[in-house]
């Protein structure tokens, strides 16, 4: 299986011994083929099973959509894109082994990132040490960018801590008597989820808004009644959940059971999920969420992406898919500009190009600082009239911000 994918791309670059070795291993008989008509092999490791399997599969769809859409248009540099996706079982040991295999054994021309911050850092280290460009769709926590990686880029508008920037601005611009005075935070013990909540917390605390509850729960928490009891008992004006999907739902249901009614409730992951409304008994009105992506966003490539993705998978893309697609777009832009896609010196050129340029993507134009951190902010969405709409920033809003939120 592996050998059929192994290619003889280094032929000219590395000399006769390598040709012999690889030719002997590959056994596909076309050792004489020139580099230019071979497909570009893109190596990816994703959590297709285990704890992160759900978002992992979303990311997979995004990559597959990117490969299909690009290939339908003739590929990159006239070469078809071929994805090789390995399952890392949501395990850091695995993700490293996978990238070792993709780079060392499968000799992928390009590698792109896995899902979840916990897996991005170890994966990025492998890519870094083999000198590969590493654009990733999911390592949003600030820790990712403090490791000194030079080849890493996060393909989304903003890192976790900046997700709520627009909301913070809005709240702090309110007259003092209308601002929420107390806030309860509950965040999953996950760099990404905590990052979103704490980014907002830092800004609100700096403006003198009191934190009355600050709870962190492990990712495997299933019973939120105690956390909910603390929040309800604090009677905080505002609730901020650093959540992924199910934990956010569980927390809301537990709070509803206790009849806690905040003036504002924001959750990082859950409200954009298509099943969210039903899961909390359709009492969604006024619930907030930051988002890096909206299918309705006006960016040029987005219309094509939404259309073709929907045709391919029978539903509109959401953020995970869009981030993977964005990753593909960034890599494609670099490859097209530099004119190469292979291991070796080419990678350095690709890295340099991404550092120096702005890329138009389905989540808007992206550029990065030296650590690979994107320089943007997320939009704020809110459930208004039974639909989730963009309410902040003013420039792109689809509906008016509802405050205080109605009872749930």
């Amino acid at each position, binding site marked *: 299986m592996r050998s059929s994918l192994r290619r003889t791309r280094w032929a000219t670059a590395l000399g006769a011994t390598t040709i012999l070795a690889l030719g002997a291993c590959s056994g596909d008989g076309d050792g004489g083929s020139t580099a230019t008509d071979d497909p570009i092999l893109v190596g990816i490791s994703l959590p297709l*099973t*285990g*704890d992160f*399997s*759900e978002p992992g599969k979303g990311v997979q769809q995004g990559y597959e959509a990117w490969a299909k859409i690009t290939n339908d248009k003739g590929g990159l540099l006239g070469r078809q894109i071929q994805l090789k996706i390995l399952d890392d079982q949501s395990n850091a040991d695995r993700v490293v082994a996978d990238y070792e295999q993709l780079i060392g054994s499968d000799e992928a021309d390009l590698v792109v990132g896995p899902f979840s911050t916990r897996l991005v850092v170890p994966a990025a280290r492998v890519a870094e040490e083999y000198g590969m460009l590493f654009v990733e769709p999911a390592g949003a926590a600030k820790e990712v960018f403090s490791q000194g990686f030079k080849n890493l880029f996060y393909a989304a508008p903003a890192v976790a801590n900046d997700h709520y920037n627009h909301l913070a601005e809005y709240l702090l611009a309110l007259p003092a008597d209308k601002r929420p005075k107390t806030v309860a935070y509950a965040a999953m*013990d996950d760099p990404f989820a905590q990052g979103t909540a704490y980014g907002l917390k830092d800004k609100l605390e700096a403006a003198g808004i009191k934190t009355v509850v600050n*709870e*962190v*729960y*492990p990712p*495997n*928490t*299933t*019973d939120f*009644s*105690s*956390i909910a*009891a*603390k929040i*309800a*008992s604090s009677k905080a004006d505002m609730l901020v959940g650093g959540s992924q*999907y*199910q*934990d956010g*739902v*569980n927390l809301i*249901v*537990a709070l*509803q*059971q*206790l*009849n806690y009614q905040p003036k504002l409730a924001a959750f990082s992951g859950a409200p954009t999920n298509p099943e969210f409304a*039903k*899961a*909390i*008994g359709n*009492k969604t009105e006024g619930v907030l969420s930051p988002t890096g992506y909206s299918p309705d966003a006006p960016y040029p490539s987005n219309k094509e992406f939404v259309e073709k993705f929907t045709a391919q998978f029978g539903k509109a893309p959401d953020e995970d898919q869009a981030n993977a697609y964005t990753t593909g777009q960034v890599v494609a832009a670099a490859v097209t500009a530099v004119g190469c896609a292979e291991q070796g010196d080419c990678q350095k050129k690709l890295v340099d190009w991404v550092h120096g340029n702005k890329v138009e993507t389905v989540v808007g134009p992206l550029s990065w600082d030296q650590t690979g951190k994107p320089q943007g902010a997320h939009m704020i969405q809110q459930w208004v009239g039974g639909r989730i709409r963009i309410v902040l920033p003013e420039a792109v809003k689809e509906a008016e911000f509802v405050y205080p939120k109605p009872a749930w």
Partner: protein
Amino acid sequence: MPSGALLFQSVILGLLLGGLYALLAAGLTLYFGIMRVVMIAHSAFLILAAYLAWWTHTRLGIDPLLSMIVTVPLFFGAGVLLQRGLLSRLRAITLTMMSVLLTFAVALIIEGLLGYAFTGTQRRIQLGYGSAGLQVFGARIAVVKLIAFGLAVLALAALYLLMKKTTFGWALRATIQHRDAARLVGIDTERVAGYGFGLGLATAAIGGTALSLDTTIYPSLHWHWIGPLMAIIVVGGLGSVPGAAAAAVLLGLIQSLLQIPLGTTWAQTIFYLALFATLAFRPQGFFGGRLAQRF
């Protein structure tokens, strides 16, 4: 300083949780009593039952409680099969150790199959009354939690009556307490042991259904349950059902109260601290049970 209302709320939550712990620990205690088997797969079966309840509700559209009509007998049968078909065939000398591994293997198989059938997505039953609550002396109790607790209490009461009032219950207790003597009064201890296992697993069916009412489930959730349950049966004194029940309620209560100052994660450590303290200072457990030291 937490308010009185929050304390009271936490006490109520702790008791509700403790009830469920007690039911589940009762099953584990039964297995241990019968065969000195530490049944790692108990909580995997628990999650399996929760999935079946979820499936019943989501796919068939009927109340999850009705799934017990199928799961309780099914699990009873599975328990009998597990004991007669696998565990009783292990060498007696290494039974305790090997049974741990065998039931561990069963847990892995269940987890893998659940993941295969239902994916790793977190699932939750959405009931019409899921977010309803009752006001009780200033505390609010979720209706679903009350139902889960009621189920646990009913099941425990039924188990108690069965053990105390029926011939089978007597035979099972006799088998647990002195297997050879039980054989000598004419009890078919092999068969009773099999049924005892079935009974233990049936508690997992009920517990899983209760669990599914108000929490999220996912295939690897059983690891989250097995630790506290193990701790409970050791603290309660291995082999003692009343001891396990007392330890379950007490630890559930402490966990719930500790969450106020310490948060979710640190509060969970109470189970393991209690476990280590028990083994260090009172290996036979705090609530009876005389087997721990010997086994």
